[in-house]
């Protein structure tokens, strides 16, 4: 079954002409046609373009690239020339991007096949993909439950084998958390490693594009392809970074992993048990586990919902019905264009965050909220640095709970708490990955999070790879 093959194997076979890109593409398109209606993972597939690209790859004379013939699903907040980028929102429901995101250029250069755009919480704001204007996405492991968010569509697509690789974006955990809830690898690179040019900005100093895959090797493959300095993104790292692939098999003997026990004391029982078993795996590979102090993580949600919303309130100001996107038909005056287009075009969660962000920046409140949060952020970065003096990598759960029923979490604040373990890495710009590490009694996936020092993504992927070799949780697939 072609669609069960990992990306690196597909690429290998296509390069060796054992498989044609056309076969591969058709195989996945068939899967999508069959399974997507019940999942709503994909908003759109680019059948014609994908088959066209496959044809070109199959007739190419020159050696093929690292992702030859590999179909990749793209979260619908990443631009592809000539295609819609809706961000899961009515206000951009008719917006066609006139330029490619840098990552798309990089993937296409390696002969990948962009197969379609996936569902997300509107403007990437959410942890359940329930806030999309185009309906929720379902978790392939249990169709009544959420795949997590905001990159739920991409996660579900990979989990259900509708694509071997997918891109999401992670601002507070939006790749890692759905990765955990869907039983796959979800990775957030170090801030600055992958270009943000062409990613619709939510929280500019937090956002990173991150991949989903079935194996650490595939994460390494696609991350290495996308790790390139981008002159169109001023926050793109300008010096060379260590690639991930050559370090996958580095030994963990004598290496130290840190666990912030104090911070994760209230884990649900199944999760606590699973976490402790994961630690034993690393110990069996020769590593040591030590306790580390990350007490400031207590404030991570507070910091995040002040800082990311502040940035978002300005990043989303451009969606005003004037130059592109949706303009309210009822608008008679200029004020109407603004007020009504934004009121009709965006849903409650987005409005809430915009107003919250506006609040924390407004006169009289900026010192107590925005500036204070920026200072605590500095303290957190320093606390992480001190923790990394005691250990090489940090281990934590990814999500505090398993995939929840769609519609079961109505309170915004409660939804925000889903990100409690993931947000720290965004605040400090650290590389972090969720790896499949077990199942609940209801056969719902559990994820383990590995966090590394800034720019040491290869260490994170190495640990993930060796864990995978020992445990094989990634080989499980959802029923049906």
């Amino acid at each position: 079954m072609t669609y069960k093959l990992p990306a690196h194997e597909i690429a290998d076979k296509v390069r060796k002409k054992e498989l044609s890109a056309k076969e591969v593409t058709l195989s996945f398109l068939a899967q999508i046609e069959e399974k997507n209606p019940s999942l709503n993972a994909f908003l759109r597939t680019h059948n014609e373009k994908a088959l066209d690209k496959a044809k070109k790859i199959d007739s190419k004379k020159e050696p093929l690239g690292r992702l030859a013939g590999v179909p990749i699903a793209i979260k619908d907040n990443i631009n592809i020339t000539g295609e819609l980028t809706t961000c899961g929102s009515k206000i951009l429901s008719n917006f066609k991007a006139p330029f490619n995101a840098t990552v798309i250029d990089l993937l296409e250069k390696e002969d990948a096949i962009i197969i379609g755009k996936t569902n997300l919480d509107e403007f990437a704001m959410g942890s359940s993909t329930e806030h999309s204007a185009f309906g929720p996405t379902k978790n392939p492991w249990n169709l009544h439950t959420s795949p997590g968010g905001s990159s739920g569509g991409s996660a579900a697509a990979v989990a259900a084998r509708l694509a071997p690789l997918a891109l999401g974006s992670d601002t507070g955990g939006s790749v890692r958390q759905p990765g955990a809830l869907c039983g796959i690898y979800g990775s957030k690179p170090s801030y600055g490693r992958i270009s943000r040019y062409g990613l619709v900005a939510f929280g500019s100093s937090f956002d990173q594009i991150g991949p989903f895959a079935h194996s650490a090797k595939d994460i390494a493959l696609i991350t290495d392809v996308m790790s390139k300095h981008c002159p169109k993104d001023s926050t793109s790292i300008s010096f060379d970074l260590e690639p991930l692939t050559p370090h996958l098999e580095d030994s963990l003997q004598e290496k130290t992993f840190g666990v912030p026990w104090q911070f994760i004391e209230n884990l649900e029982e199944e999760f606590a048990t699973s976490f402790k078993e994961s630690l034993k795996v690393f110990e069996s590979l020769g590593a040591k586990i030590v306790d580390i102090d990350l007490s400031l993580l207590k404030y991570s949600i507070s910091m995040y919902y002040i800082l990311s919303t502040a940035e978002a309130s300005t990043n989303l100001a451009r969606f005003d019905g004037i130059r592109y996107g949706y303009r309210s038909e009822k608008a008679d005056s200029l004020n109407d264009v603004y007020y009504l287009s934004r009121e009709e075009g965006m849903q409650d969660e987005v409005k809430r965050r915009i107003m919250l962000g506006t609040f924390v920046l407004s006169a009289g409140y900026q010192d107590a909220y925005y500036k204070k949060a920026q200072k605590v952020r500095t303290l957190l970065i320093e606390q992480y640095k001190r923790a990394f003096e005691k250990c090489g990598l940090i281990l934590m759960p990814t999500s505090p709970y398993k995939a929840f029923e769609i519609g079961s979490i109505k309170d915004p604040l409660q939804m925000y708490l889903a990100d409690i373990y993931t947000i720290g890495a965004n605040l400090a710009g650290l590389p972090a990955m969720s790896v499949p590490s077990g199942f609940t009694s209801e056969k719902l996936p559990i994820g383990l999070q590995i966090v590394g020092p800034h720019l040491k993504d290869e260490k994170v992927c190495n640990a993930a790879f060796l864990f995978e070799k020992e445990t094989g949780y990634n080989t499980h697939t959802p029923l049906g």
Partner: protein
Amino acid sequence: MSEITLESIEHLSLLSRIALTEEQKKQFAQDMQDIVSYVDLLQEVEVDGTPLCHNVLDTLLHTPQREDIVGETLERSDFLNSAPKQVAGLVEVPTIL
């Protein structure tokens, strides 16, 4: 401890140009109050003398400066045709009173 009143919401609605129904104003006031009360947790952290973090890279890198060369431009017709309303090569908006 900040209080989010209906007035606060009306002011935020103005600053962010989002129209709200009376119903929505009440709901948002409640939601925002809950959230703001939660994030007020931050007030207990001692931050005297700590510098602000503007971006995690701001101690590592400087802002890059590009050469003064004309680069990619947007096709005029593409831009205008994707505007909700256009007139005489301009993006049309209702008159400003």
